[in-house]
């Protein structure tokens, strides 16, 4: 049996949150000279902390959910059988790892490690070509913006390349704000050089003079890695593109969701209040300080080195007619294997949710794509291929890659309410339709989930939603009604039950639900009584619905699963 050559441990944010740093410390202490490398994210969130033992023959053994104990670490060092992690075979079969190939494989802040894995080959090739030829390569690749809009990247580059100006600005949009989305963070933490290489290629192709990374301040590790990587780029003079040098600046965003919208992002970068403005003029005509400006998403830049290294035509072999390459998804919600996945365009939703995510076919009722601005797609439509255009026809959007699986024990009205809770608060407040309209829609959904909704409320939502989409100034407002309109379209019966019968079939809306103890199962152990924060359970093990806040503490505490949520008025 081969010996361990290197030990890799995932210390991206998700790994750290699961205790990977403690594991790493023990690993280092006991590795007896075997190099221990902190790497990025492997994409198996549910198995963090993860350690990969790379053997001398090049093969490797993965360990998941590694505990920060000497015993667990020694088990790894002896290549023991306990805690070995197997990539789910269905996932292995369906994933197409391109952009994430180096994530979790290289030390994010080791320049040489990246170069050793064919890093900066794309840039090198680009610099050997004429800038127009580079743009053309991206055009041929069919790459479309991964931030959600899906605008052909090559065309955007060509716009900027054609501009004559004293300064031309390139911006990387790393203001990943949607709840449940972490594709960009993973990329920046795991392979900062890859996205920087993409930017440098873009700068060469378009003649950009200044490069900004607009990254949300909530990503300290990504910012740290980027800063180190940038200094390494300067050190190796990789910012010298032909006969000119470009500057790379990181700007930390203050946490406004809307600053992911390009004109708001530019305003924020300029030091203004982060609010969008009407387009045209488009940023490529007049952007940062009125200079021609191009904005691409992190993942988009992450694809570029591959395209230049392998050639646009080769890249275009993956994907569908209109959507080329792969897409990263942050898979979350009601499934067995949440995590970061990379799939070829054209894969079906069902493959992602059931085969890769391991969700329960008997329970899933929908998936929400595109974060809080996306739509809910019902399970009946899961055979739809994942590409920009197909999702749009379903009233959803590709979005930046958030994908939340929803089981039948979740209420669709509540799901919509939750999404709008985010978006209406993240409205910048500038335009009427978004500022007031979204607030009114949110208030209406609150009423419905509280059991105070009326039939007219449903008409109001159906009437106002499309008007907000048509009237709002920027992409935030133009998509924010999606979760309501999509759930109204596919799950109208749930809304109707809420307003007509005051019934929540998922038993999620507290106002329409009571908690009840099944006395046949109850063993009177008293754990529920002790867990109740409001003393709603009396000595006879009856729950007082007036006191009960439906917090589910008792339900979780009950060892006999004797406590149930039941519809109001159905108590026995």
């Amino acid at each position, binding site marked *: 049996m081969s010996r361990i050559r290197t030990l890799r441990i995932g210390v991206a944010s998700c790994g750290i949150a699961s205790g990977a740093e403690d594991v790493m410390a023990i690993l280092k202490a006991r590795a007896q000279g075997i190099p221990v490398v902190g790497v990025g994210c492997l994409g198996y969130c549910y198995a963090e902390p993860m350690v990969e033992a790379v053997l001398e023959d090049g093969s490797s053994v993965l360990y998941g959910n590694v505990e920060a104990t000497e015993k667990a670490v020694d088990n790894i060092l002896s290549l023991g059988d306990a805690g070995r992690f197997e990539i789910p075979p269905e996932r292995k079969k369906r994933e197409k790892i391109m952009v994430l190939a180096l994530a979790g494989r290289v030390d994010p802040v080791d320049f040489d490690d990246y170069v050793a894995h064919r890093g900066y080959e794309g840039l090198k090739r680009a610099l050997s070509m004429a800038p127009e030829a580079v743009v053309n390569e991206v055009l041929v690749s069919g790459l479309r913006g991964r931030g959600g809009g899906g605008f052909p990247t090559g065309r955007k580059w060509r716009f900027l390349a054609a501009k004559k100006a004293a300064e031309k600005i390139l911006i990387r949009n790393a203001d990943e704000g949607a709840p449940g989305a972490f594709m960009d963070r993973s990329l920046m933490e795991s392979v900062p050089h890859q996205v920087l290489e993409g930017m440098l290629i873009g700068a060469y192709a378009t003649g950009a003079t200044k490069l900004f990374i607009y990254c949300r301040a909530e990503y300290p590790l990504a910012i740290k890695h980027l800063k180190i990587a940038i200094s390494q780029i300067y050190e190796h003079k990789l910012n010298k593109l032909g006969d000119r040098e470009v500057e790379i600046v990181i700007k930390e965003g203050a946490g406004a969701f809307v600053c992911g919208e390009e004109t708001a992002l530019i305003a924020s970068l300029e030091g203004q209040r982060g609010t969008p403005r009407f387009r045209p003029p488009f940023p490529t005509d007049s952007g940062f300080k009125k200079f021609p400006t191009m904005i691409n998403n992190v993942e988009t830049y992450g694809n570029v080195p591959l395209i230049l290294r392998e050639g646009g035509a080769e890249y275009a072999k993956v994907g569908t007619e209109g959507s080329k390459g792969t897409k990263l998804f942050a898979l979350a919600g009601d499934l067995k294997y949440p995590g970061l996945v990379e799939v070829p365009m054209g894969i079906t939703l069902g493959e992602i949710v059931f085969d890769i995510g391991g969700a329960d076919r008997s329970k899933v009722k929908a998936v929400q794509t595109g974060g809080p601005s996306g739509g809910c797609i019902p399970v009946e439509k899961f055979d739809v291929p994942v590409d920009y255009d197909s999702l749009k026809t379903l009233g959803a959007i590709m979005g930046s890659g958030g994908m939340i699986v929803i089981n039948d024990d979740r209420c669709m009205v509540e799901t919509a309410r939750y999404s709008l809770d985010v978006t209406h608060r993240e409205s910048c407040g500038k335009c009427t339709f978004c500022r007031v309209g979204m*607030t009114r829609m949110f208030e209406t959904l609150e009423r419905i989930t509280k059991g105070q909704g009326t039939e007219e409320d449903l008409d109001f939502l159906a009437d106002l939603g499309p008007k907000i989409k048509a009237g709002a100034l920027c992409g935030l407002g133009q998509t924010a009604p999606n979760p309501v309109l999509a759930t109204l379209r596919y799950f109208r019966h749930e809304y109707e039950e809420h307003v007509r019968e005051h019934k929540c079939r998922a038993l999620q809306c507290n106002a329409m639900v009571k908690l009840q103890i099944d006395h046949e199962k109850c063993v009177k152990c008293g754990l529920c009584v002790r867990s109740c924060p409001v003393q709603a359970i009396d000595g006879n093990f009856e729950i007082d619905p007036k006191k009960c806040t439906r917090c589910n503490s008792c339900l979780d505490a009950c060892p006999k699963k004797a406590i149930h949520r039941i519809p109001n008025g159905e108590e026995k």
Partner: protein
Amino acid sequence: MSIEFILDGRKVTAEPGQTILEVARANGISIPTLCRDEKVSRTTSCFVCVVRDCKTGKFLPSCSACPAPGQEIDASGDDVREMRRTALNLLLSEHTGDCEAPCTVACPAHAAVEEYVRAGREGDFRKALEIIKKRIPLPMSVGRVCPRFCEKNCRRNVYGKPVAINEFKRLAADLYYDEYMEELPALSGKKVAVVGAGPAGLSCAYYLRRAGVAATVFDAMKAAGGMLRYGIPEYRLPKHAILDRELAHFGKMGIAFDFGRKLGENLSLDELRKNFDAVVIAVGCWQGSGMRCPGEELATVGIDYLRSIPEADYVAPNPGKVIVVGGGNTAMDCVRTSVRLGSPDVSCFYRRTEAEMPAEKLEIAEAREEGVKFTFLVAPVKLEKRGGKLVLTCRKMELGEPDASGRRKPVEIPGSDYEVEADTVIAAIGQKSDIPAGVPVNRFGYADAPRGAAKLSDGLYAAGDCLSGAATVVEGLASGRRAAEEILRDVCGMDVEIDNPIYVSRGKWQHLKKSDLVFVRDGVSEAERAELKMIPQEERRTTFKETTFTMDKETVQREGDRCIGCSCTDKAECKLRKHAAEYGCDPEKIKGARLPVSYDTRHPLIIQDRGKCIKCGVCVKTCAEVINRNLLGIKKRGFNTFVATAFDAGFAGNCSDCGACIEACPTGALDWRNKK
């Protein structure tokens, strides 16, 4: 190079950089906008200016979108109007304020209360009268008999008693009514016949004449006034000293009267319609309802009783022991009149309780002071004559479930009947109209016009009680004015705007706290309300002398200091209100939370009222881009966005009081504190 595109079906030309809004304006197409101000860079905030790109179906903010060659733009279609209406309704749904002062809104005639109270506060009661008469042509009468809808809605009720608004009318009229003459335009040649010289008919004739249209008022009685003369008792409205004086003015204005003419008897509707350009029916409600029980014919009808007194010149016999059945204002007039005629024992019988009585609380209190007894929860069952006396059989009642009017319905208690003796039993149950033949009647027995309107058919209009059912004097005046306006518009072809204003309201005062009110003016008086002085109790019981005195000038002036001045500083110029009215918006259409009341009067001249802000940021840009001071900024985000000064320190010493931000503000969110 200029480009061509299609705007509302017309080929138009745009210069480079010109927005669709600018091109539309240059071509006479009006597009509303709140947030576009040419002095500053565009804000693209309100979206009231949306137009539609016909090819893509997309809506564009015309203030910011430049046309593309060959583009087809719809700036006036139904879809576009609906989007604008929605944007305006959304803005109204977050708008906090009182466009108009609640007193003015509550006044059926929508008299400019705040304005005449201000004139009075400043001591200019002549100006006050001028303002009052724009809406109330009978200020002497209304100043005495009005149930004061205004005062019931006065914001001052939130903490203490309302401003004594009606006293301003009474005093202003007492002081200047005789000498004040309206500017009267030359007669246009059009002629209108008004049938009925009550408040509605007089008001109609008055506003017609003020607009230059001749009016002839016909009346069946021998003098003008209608209910003012023949319904309302002398002690509330002296006929000679006050009413005659007030009505003389109508003659001076050139309004013709023709008395003793009753429609259908010695006055023909067909003749009138032939000889006049329009006819207004304002015959009132003079048919008293009976008690609806056996023997009801033995009772005196309340309205007839009241009319008989002035007709007999106040020389009427003592009615003996009196029972008045009913709980309205007519019933109160009957009991108090009976007291004055010498009755030793006057009772009012009402089938519900005092809380449900429709009569004015003040009238009930004054009747009680004058010795009237009240018996509640009784209904008449039978009226008989026994040995020279009337015997009224009554049944006791109890209150049941609320009925359609929201009042608890009286329910009979079986076996509770009892008898009472009286010399006179008066039925003051209600009044109906006796609509002359040839006038369309609705199922309630009143003249049949669409709700709120006066027009019955071409050239035929109605006003007052015969249109609305028995109502108050001020409602009659409003109704008469409405008929006059419709005639001026429809028959005389004048450009009359019949107001249908948007009134955003902070809500009923009952739901407000003092901190919900906005005090634009410093020094609102904390004094108690001035109370009316009355003649001695003995005189009240024995004579028909007017019971109250007109307040003196100083008292009324001081009362004016108590006025908060709730109306919006920008009510005349607010673009939100203007466009909302144009687009038929409704402030109640979309409901939802509003920002808490928050205003800033630290600047001696300027008020900032956040509840009225539409967050367009034009003020911020004006101060920064035009004035170069940068005193204002936008804070917070989303629904909680607001405009504030740096560190919320107020304008501090840096403001030059230039008012450019006020000028730029489309609403009253920033305004001068002193109202025009």
